[in-house]
C-alpha cells in the first residue's frame, strides 16, 4: 500500500524521511487495478465481462422487462389468498416483530454508518421515486423517464407505506432499546428475551385466529396462507421448534463418560471371534453411561443428515396422514413437522460442535464444585456451547429460510410456489424473468439481512453474546 521514497543521498541516518504514502485516485488505481501487467490484463478482461453483463441486465430491466406482473400480483405474492379484509392482522404482527427486532438491536447491536446510510437512502428512494415519477409522467415512450414513471413508480409507491412503517417501527424500537440499555442493561436484555418468547405465539395466533368464525379474530385456514407469509411462518415455526429438539439430540449424543478405552488390536485380530467380542464390548462401553439413548440419537441424526430434504417432505406429505390415522392434518402442518424434524438433526450437530469446543476444565470445575450433571449442563456447559455455536446457528437458520422454498415441490404455495402459480396464468406467461428476479431479491434481502445482523452482533465486541440473558 505504501511506496517509500529513497533516503536522500548522504543524509545522516537520523534524518531518514518517513515513507510517503501515495494518495489520490491515480495511486489507488495503480495499487488496486494496475499493479502488474497481469493485473492490468485481468482488470481489462473483467471490465469487459462485468460491464457487458451489467449493461445487458440494465437494458433488459429498463427496456424489455414488464414489471407490472409484480405490481398486479403484489398482494398474492406477499400473503397468498389470505383474506384481504384481515390484512391488518398481518401488518400488526410484522410491526410487533420489527419493533422487538429494533429493541434487540438497540440493546445488543451498534449503529454502523453503513446501516444508517442504507436506512436514509432507502427512505429517500421510496419517498422521492414516486414524486419524481409524477414530474416525468409525460415523457415519451421508451425513454428512461417513461420507465421510471411507468414501471418503477407503481412498485415503489406500493412499497412506500409498508417500508416507511417498518423503518419507523425499527427506529422506535432502537430508541427504546438504547434507552432501556442506559437504565439497566442486564435487566433490559432479560425482559427483551421474555418479550420475544411471548411475541412469537402472539403473532402466530394473530395470523391463525381462533377457531370461531365470527369472533374478534376469525379463523384463517392454513391453505389460505401463501407467498412470503407462508415462507415466514414455515421458517419461523421450524426455527423455534427445531431448536429445543436439536439441543436434546446433541446432549443425547454427547451423553456419557468422557474417558475412552482404546482397542489394542493384536495382529490379525479379525481372524479371532473372541477379539471381535472384545472390540464390540469396548465399542459398547465407549458409548458411555447411556448407550441406548446415544445410539438412538446417532441413528436419528445421521439418517436425517444423509437424505435430501425433498424426500423427507415428499414422504411426510404422503405418509404422515396414514401414520397418524388422520386425514385432516393439512399440508402446511405436515411441511412444518417435516422441516422441524429434518433441521433438528443439523442443529444437533452444530450444538455438539459447540459442546466439543468447550475446554474440558469447565465441566471438571463444575463437578469439583459439587454440581450435579444436570446442573453442570444447564448452567455451565450448555450456555457457553450455545454462545460458541451462534455463527453456525445463524448460518443454519439462513439455510432453513432458503429451504422453505422446497415445499414448492410438494405443491405448497410459498413465495416460490406462488410465483410459479402466477406464471401459469395466461396473461403472465413469459414473464418468468421479472418474477424470478423479484423473488430472488426478496430472498436475498432477508438472507443477507440475517447474516449482516449476525456479523454486526459478532463484531460489536466479544462480550456481545455474553450479555444475552
Amino acid at each position, binding site marked *: 500500500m505504501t511506496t517509500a521514497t529513497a533516503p536522500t543521498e548522504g543524509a545522516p541516518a537520523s534524518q531518514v524521511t518517513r515513507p510517503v504514502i501515495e494518495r489520490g485516485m491515480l495511486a489507488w488505481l495503480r*495499487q*488496486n*487495478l494496475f*499493479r502488474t501487467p497481469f*493485473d492490468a490484463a*485481468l*482488470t481489462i478482461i*473483467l*471490465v469487459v465481462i*462485468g460491464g457487458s453483463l451489467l449493461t445487458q441486465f440494465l437494458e433488459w430491466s429498463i427496456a424489455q422487462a414488464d414489471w407490472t406482473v409484480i405490481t398486479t400480483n403484489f398482494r398474492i405474492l406477499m400473503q397468498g389468498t389470505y383474506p384481504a379484509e384481515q390484512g391488518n392482522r398481518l401488518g400488526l404482527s410484522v410491526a410487533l416483530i420489527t419493533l422487538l427486532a429494533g429493541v434487540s438491536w438497540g440493546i445488543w447491536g451498534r449503529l454502523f454508518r453503513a446501516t444508517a446510510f442504507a436506512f436514509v437512502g432507502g427512505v429517500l428512494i421510496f419517498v422521492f421515486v414516486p414524486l419524481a415519477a409524477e414530474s416525468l409522467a409525460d415523457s415519451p415512450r421508451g425513454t428512461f423517464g417513461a420507465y421510471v414513471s411507468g414501471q418503477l413508480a407503481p412498485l415503489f409507491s406500493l412499497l412506500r407505506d409498508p417500508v416507511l412503517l417498518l423503518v419507523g417501527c425499527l427506529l422506535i424500537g432502537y430508541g427504546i432499546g438504547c434507552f432501556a440499555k442506559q437504565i439497566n442493561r442486564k435487566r433490559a436484555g432479560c425482559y427483551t428475551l421474555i418479550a420475544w418468547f411471548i411475541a412469537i405465539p402472539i403473532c402466530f395466533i394473530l395470523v391463525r385466529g381462533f377457531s370461531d368464525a365470527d369472533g374478534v379474530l376469525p379463523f384463517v385456514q392454513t391453505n389460505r396462507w401463501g407467498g412470503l407469509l407462508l415462507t415466514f411462518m414455515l421458517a419461523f415455526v421450524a426455527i423455534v421448534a427445531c431448536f429445543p429438539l436439536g439441543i436434546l439430540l446433541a446432549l443425547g449424543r454427547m451423553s456419557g463418560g468422557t474417558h475412552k478405552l482404546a482397542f489394542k488390536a493384536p495382529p490379525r485380530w479379525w481372524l479371532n471371534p473372541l477379539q471381535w467380542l472384545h472390540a464390540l464390548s469396548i465399542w459398547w462401553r465407549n458409548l458411555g*453411561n*447411556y*448407550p*441406548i*439413548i446415544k445410539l*438412538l440419537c446417532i441413528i436419528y441424526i445421521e*439418517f436425517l*443428515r*444423509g*437424505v*435430501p*430434504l*425433498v*424426500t423427507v417432505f*415428499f*414422504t411426510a406429505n*404422503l*405418509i404422515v*396422514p*396414514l*401414520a*397418524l*390415522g388422520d386425514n385432516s392434518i393439512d399440508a402446511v402442518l405436515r411441511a412444518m413437522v417435516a422441516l422441524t424434524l429434518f433441521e433438528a438433526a443439523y442443529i444437533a450437530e452444530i450444538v455438539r460442535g459447540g459442546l466439543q469446543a468447550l475446554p474440558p476444565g469447565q465441566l471438571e470445575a463444575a463437578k469439583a464444585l459439587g454440581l450435579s450433571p444436570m446442573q453442570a449442563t444447564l448452567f455451565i456447559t450448555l450456555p457457553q456451547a450455545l454462545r460458541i455455536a451462534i455463527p453456525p446457528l445463524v448460518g443454519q437458520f*439462513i439455510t432453513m429460510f*432458503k*429451504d422453505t*422454498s*422446497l415445499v*414448492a*415441490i410438494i405443491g405448497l404455495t410459498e413465495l*416460490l410456489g406462488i410465483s*410459479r402459480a402466477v406464471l401459469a396464468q395466461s396473461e403472465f406467461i413469459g414473464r*418468468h*424473468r421479472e418474477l*424470478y428476479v423479484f*423473488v*430472488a431479491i426478496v*430472498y*436475498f434481502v432477508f*438472507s*443477507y439481512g440475517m*447474516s449482516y445482523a449476525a456479523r454486526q452482533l459478532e463484531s460489536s465486541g466479544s462480550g456481545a453474546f455474553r450479555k444475552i440473558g
Partner: protein
Amino acid sequence: MADLTQRSPLPRLAFLRDVRFLRAAVQLIVLAVVIGLALWLINNTSEGLARARIPTDFSFLTQPSGFQIDEGLVDQPHKRTDSYANAFAVALVNTLRAVILGLILSTLLGLFVGIARLSTNFLARTLALAYIEIFQNTPLLLQLFFIFTSVLLTLPRATEPIILPGPSYLSSSGLATPNLIATERSGLWLLLTVIGIGSGIALWRRLRAIRLETGRTTYAAEIGLSVMFGVGILAWLILQPFTVDFPELGRFGYVRNKGAIISANFVAIVLGLVLYTGAFIAEIVRSGIQSVPTGQWEAARSQGFTYGQILRLIVLPQALRVMIPPLTNQYLNLAKNSSLGAAVGFAEVFGVARTMAQSVSVVPIMVIVMGIYLALSLITAAVMNVLNARFQIKTR
C-alpha cells in the same frame, strides 16, 4: 469380620438409589417409548395402506414400469417395457453423472473464486464477493428455475441453433457435440495410455528422489509430464483409435444417435449445482487460505517464490487441512441437492421415484430412494474421511 458380611440395613432403597440401575431404567423407558411410538406409527400406516389396498412389498420392481426415460448414457436407456428396477438403475446412473461432474466443476470454480476473493485486484475481489453473496443468499431451487426457464429455454429452437466450433450446436433442447466412437484399436490405445501415465509418474518420482539425494537438476516434472501425456498423444496420432461422429441437424432439430446430445435438463441441474456449491466452496477456500499464517507468505516471498508457486506449493497444501471437513459437508450437500433435478425435469433418483409414486405404493419407493441417498452420503463421507486422515499433520 461378621460386620462386614452383614447385609446393608436398607437393601431396597439402596437398590433404587444405585446409579447403574437408574441409568438402565431410564434407557429402557426411553427405548420402550421409542419402540412403542414406532410400532404405533407403522401399525397405523400399514392399516391405512391396507384400507386403501396399496401393496407395500417390493414385488413391483420386476414389473414393466410403463414410462420411458430418455436421459442417460445411451439412447433411450429405459423403455416402457423395462422393469422398475431398471428405471432405478438408470436414474442412479443419471444422479451419479450429475453429482460427479458437479463435484469436479464446483471445486474448480470454488478454488478459482476463493483465490480471486483474496486478490489484490479490486475488481476481481469485488466481482467474486458479488457472486458469492448472490448465490449464497438465494435458494437453489429458484436458481434452478431461473437457469432452466429463463436462460436455457429462451435459447433459439433446435432447428436454428447457435453454432459453436466443433461443430457443436446449442439450443433450447440442449447441447450437441461431436462424439467419439470406439474402434477395434481403442483398447490398445487405452492400454498404451495407461502404461504411459504409469511410467511417467514412476519416472517423475524416481527423478525427484535423485534430485533430493544428490541435488542435481533432473527436470523431474518436465520429463515426467511429457512421458505421461506424450505416449498417449503419440499413440493417438499413430493408431487413430476413434472415429468422430458429428451431430446433425434434421427437420425437427437434432438427429438422434448423431453426436453426443447433452439435454438442457442435465445442463440446468449441473450448472445450478456448480454455481450454488461453488459459492460456498469459495468461502471455504478463502477462510482456508486466510488460516495459513502470514509468515508463511512472507518467508516464501523472501525465498523468491512467485505468487503462483507460493499458492500451489506452500499455502494451499496447508490450507487443505482446514478446508477438508467443511468441504466434505458441501460435497454431501451437493449430492443431496442433486435431488432437485426433479424440478427441472432431469431424470434422477428422486424425480423418477416421483413418477413411479403415481402408479405404485409410495412406501417401498421411498425406502429405496432414501437408501440410495444414504448410501451415496455415506460413501462420500467415507472417502472424504480417508482423505482427511491423509492430509492431517502426523503427530505422535
